[in-house]
């Protein structure tokens, strides 16, 4: 138990170090750098001409579908990992379970591919 907490305290320290690195770099830079903003400089870059319209666009919904697919398979991965370390114990029963599980999700992937969500016209 001690090692468990110690490990995660270390992890926390590492995360803290990452943040510290960022803050350190930003701090050093903010001390050293010049700061001369003016309106033209702060304008949005668009290949050297006046930006047209807002920076927003209604992008393809396909990105959303990728996200959805990812969520589904990510969840699947969550179930695969506990299974993977117990495979020896679970034996053929576990194997069949996972076959079914993966098969059902593969149906989803095949459905998505058949529906041409991956095709960019």
């Amino acid at each position, binding site marked *: 138990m001690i090692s468990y907490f110690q490990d995660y305290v270390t992890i926390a320290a590492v995360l803290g170090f990452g943040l510290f690195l960022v803050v350190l770099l930003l701090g050093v830079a903010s001390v050293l750098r010049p700061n001369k903003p003016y309106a033209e400089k702060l304008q949005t870059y668009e290949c050297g001409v006046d930006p047209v319209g807002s920076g927003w666009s209604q992008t393809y*919904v396909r990105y*959303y579908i990728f996200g*959805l697919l990812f*969520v*589904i398979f*990510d*969840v699947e991965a*969550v*179930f695969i990992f506990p299974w993977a370390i117990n495979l020896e114990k679970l034996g053929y029963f576990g194997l069949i379970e996972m076959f079914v599980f993966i098969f059902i999700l593969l149906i989803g992937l095949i459905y998505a591919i058949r529906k041409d969500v991956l095709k960019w016209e």
Partner: protein
Amino acid sequence: MIVQPVLVTAAALFSLGIYGILVRRNAVMVLLSIELILNAVNINFIIFDSMLADSLMQGQIFTIFIITIAAAEVGIGLAIVLMLFRNRQTANINEFDLMKW
């Protein structure tokens, strides 16, 4: 460690979620609030699991299932919002009044 502060926090999270659902007009924000509620539930499951020292780890397993279902729920929920948005050009739930006429 006593469990009450954690439970109260979970309750607070839950009520914040309710508040968000009632007050927010943007459909995506409502979904975010729902996530808060589910999160409150997760916290409860985990703290009870730890409290009861359940040998079957039912609390944890249920939390995993909740996370799974929540992911599916968000997927569908956002898809509905997207569809409505594409048709109505807004994500404002006050204007989603398909059912009333």
